[in-house]
């Protein structure tokens, strides 16, 4: 099971976090700090796995961003490594040649996409097409609502609050 997902920039800035096991705020901060220390300092030609406090962290660097997923010790490392790549490909397809800036300004989109890919620390969907379709459907729901917002319903919504 994936315990958590972290996206960390080369400078150590956090771009996305998702926790599938209960961690207190203090623990989260500590993990992010310690783990960035371990992963950002690793050289380029090493393996993509780090053994860490009874867990394993599978990570991969894409340009300036490190994608990290923490898994149980006996989980299949390569499978998770390819979940990371799968995620990146979906982001890439959605944003069109994704870069760190996309993920900074549209971090909420990254969260939407991640929620379609993983929940409960498990892979939910392995088809890029399906995920793209679901996200597009969500976007259009939001768009429709925006158009309506200018209309009467908005005024009603305001009044009933």
């Amino acid at each position: 099971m994936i315990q958590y997902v972290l996206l960390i920039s080369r400078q150590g800035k956090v771009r996305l976090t998702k926790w599938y096991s209960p961690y207190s705020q203090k623990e989260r901060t500590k993990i992010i700090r310690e783990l960035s220390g371990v992963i950002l300092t690793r050289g380029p030609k090493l393996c993509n796995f780090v053994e860490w406090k009874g867990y394993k962290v599978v990570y991969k660097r894409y340009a300036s961003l490190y994608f990290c997923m923490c898994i149980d010790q006996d989980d299949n490392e390569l499978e998770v490594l390819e979940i990371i790549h799968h995620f990146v490909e979906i982001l890439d397809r959605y944003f069109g040649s994704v870069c760190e800036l996309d993920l900074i300004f549209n971090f909420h989109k990254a969260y939407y996409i991640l929620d379609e890919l993983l929940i409960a620390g498990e892979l939910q969907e392995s088809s890029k097409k399906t995920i793209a379709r679901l996200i597009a459907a969500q976007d259009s729901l939001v768009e429709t609502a925006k158009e309506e917002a200018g209309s009467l319903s908005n005024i009603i919504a305001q009044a009933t609050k």
Partner: protein
Amino acid sequence: MALSGMRGLSVFISDVRNCQNKEVERVRVDKELGNIRTRFKNEKGLTPYEKKKYVWKMLYIYMLGYDVDFGHMEAVSLISAPKYPEKQVGYIVTSCLLNENHDFLRLVINAVRNDIIGRNETFQCLGLTMIAISYSETFRLESMPTSSFTEKKVGNIGGREFSESLAPDVQKLLISSSCRPLVRKKAALCLLRLYRKNPDVVNVDGWSDRMTQLLDERDMGVLTAVMSLLVALVSNNYDAYWSCLPKCVKILERLARNQDIPQEYTYYGIPSPWLQVKTMRALQYFPTIEDPNTRRSLFEVLQRILMGTDVVKNVNKNNASHAVLFEALALVMHLDAEKEMMSQCVALLGKFIAVREPNIRYLGLENMTRMLMVTDVHDIIKRHQAQIITSLKDPDISIRRRALDLLYGMCDVTNAKDIVEELLQYLSTADFAMREELALKAAILAEKFAPDLSWYVDVILQLIDKAGDFVSDDIWFRVVQFVTNNEDLQPYAAVKAREYLDKPALHETMVKVSAYILGEYSHLLTRRPGCSPKEIFSIVHEKLPTVSSTTVPILLSTYAKILMHTQPPDQELQDHIWAIFNKYESCIDVEIQQRASALIKKAEDTEVDTAEQSAIKSRAALQQSSNALVVTDQPPSNGSLPVGQLSLVKMPSISSNADANSADQGLTEANGALSRVDPQPPTPSPDLLGDLLGPLAIEAPPNAALPSEQSSISGLEYDPNSVDALALAPLDDLTNSVQPIGNIAERFHALCLKDSGVLYEDPYIQIGVKAEWRMHHGRLVLFLGNKSTSPLLSVQALILPPSHLKIELSLVPDTIPPRAQVQIPLEVVNLRPSRDVSVLDFSYKFGSTMVNAKLRLPAVLSKFLQPISVSSEEFFPQWRSLSGPPLKLQEVIRGVKPLSLLEMSNLFNSYRLMVSPGLDPNPNNLVASTTFYSESTQAMLCLIRVETDPSDRTQLRMTVASGDPTLTLELKEFIKEQLVNIPMAVPALSSIPQQPQSTFPVGLTDPGAMLSGLL
């Protein structure tokens, strides 16, 4: 520039990005937080769009690492919004932002539930995702009266009822034919999440049939999610899901042949590698596959994967296909395939550990270590030793770690020298993070497989010299024990110790060990140059100013011993040493002061007379038995040095990582062991010199005369009573040529969890056990079955019970006729709480071969437990009324086997400690209760609380409480033994003993196994 679609948010993000430094950023963030706060205060004026925008900003700020301690209410309230855009934001921000403030989440329980059972499938998805992600933090039982929140609980749905009432709804969604896949796959994983929290949610009739049907699912997304659910279900209870097994094999066949797999579910040309991996994982939880057809089809698929996976250029394709390949390897190992397929696997792994690609090399090493469990590949793996040693020097620490583990696992007498010397060499350059582990592993291997004893001493001294900081006290205690037990070794050790003292900048541990050895044995060297008592004294004394106060008492004792051994007495030396004692008698350090004054007293009582010496020795031997036992139980002490000096010396391993309380307990325990055992009462007055000698100066340990199945008795707690019993057996008879079948230790552990099974088996006899336990009584029946066609003669069975058990053994017949089975009933009464184990000393003659086995009887502490369910109303008053030691003991345990909370609950339940899920408000904690029965305590309630650290699974804090101090201590230690990482069974063990048996002095071979308990 890519924009968020919300201007205000984009502007804010740009501003933050443009900040030159952290200070400026903080100012900008604070300003924004102030702004949001004011806007929220005046909520009436906020449009849904604005609310959304501010909530996103909060999440962004939170991600940057700032505390966001307000506005949670606004985020949460969006969940109840009628429209999708707001609802979506509410859900996502809530599940990211809130983890502790679950009081807010309580407000929306009903809203979430309504979304899930409502008709709108996009809302259903949001609700399910929310539960699947943050359920455990959010909706759990609010029964612990620790939170002031109980009074203002909103709504009347507690967490537990919530999960119970929600589970049927989620199940319905999962199996509904009218629901679309996007809802159903979320429902499957949501159910998985609920199941992890409370396994009862799928304890409904016919759920396994449902699962079987779900495996026919055509939608690959749903099937993937269902397979994850199945993996969790079978990992906990495969027995209910046998009907899923053939379906899994079918799915795997379909994937491996790429039949009917939609294009969008292939990944770099590979049909969903994830589903393949998950399916093979599920299959690994079934103990075997009985149906020959299913087994054959599965092996065909596996063969195809093993043979058909090539290395390709594309990294992702390569990773995906190797993910499948490694899972297939694991499944093949699990299924215990034919030899040919196994050697194929080893050949593949041999190839992998030599490739340059680091991931594959890492996994090759990792899987080869797993493969060591399969006995007959051990020799093939050894061929790769040189390659593995190369990986020990890899620039990547992950790979070095794997190499170290593999070398440790594959070490045996044939290659111990090479491997240990490699480890020693590596020690000087190894990362700090690895040194302690490395040192411990080298020490264990040296001890376990030493071709000769002087080599062992060399290795340990080198270890202390090179990495003294990382050598735990246990290691140096062990070497001293060995030297004490082996007379031949003593002069050699003394010479070595003397040599090390000449080195400049000695590590303090080296000072301790050298001083100790020289105190005891330097008189054996007196003829050598530089080894007169005076010279020894002065070189040891030189170190005194450099050592810490914990070492000073050891040095003082050394002086006393030098003095004692000096014949004829040297008045000048004596005056000098007495002067030192006198000086330290007024030392500020209480320990040193005590030691000094005790030594003075002792010296004044003229010389230590021989009677007293022998008393000390017999006492020491007794302490050894409890000491050895404790050593096995200890996880590595992580460098934390003991606090109390006295307890360090008396009970070294207990104090090494226990708090002061349990160290005190340890003391009482040691003394208890003395009084209950010794036929001649030990010196009643506190004898400090004896105490120092206690754990160290040891007569040959009782387990000296053990037959060859050391593996089976590794970590066996020998009761001191056994000394006499063992002594009866003539030594010659103990060299066993008959090897046991199967791992005796594993059999014992299995029997600790169940009540019937095989205790021991060799080519001639099988010993089965069947037991019934009621309160503090037990009735065991031993079934002695002669497997051969000739009679077994001189059959003898002796029970060596620890003092807390009363065991009555019926008459054992002298002969067991061919192919016959004899039943021997045993009545057991538990007198007192203790985790000691009784031993069955069993022997028989087959032809002219004498076979002897010492078998632990599964009459362990947990057998006298009765699980009891306790409600929170009962638990907390009890818990609070038992305050503090000795009734309530707490310990931080490091080096535990990494287990998920569910696995840990299973472990507890299997030891009859009933886990009450949800009783503790902290989801990372676990609370259990049980009743213990013994004659002295009668029925006594025991409460246990385990606080795990989700960020580090190798440590936890455990608190045990009961109305009886001994019970509390024993139960705590018992549970600790079950939690501490047990090293991998070294499969070669059954073949090792033959060689060392003749060369090893009696009593040497076993302790390695004991020390390995540390890992």
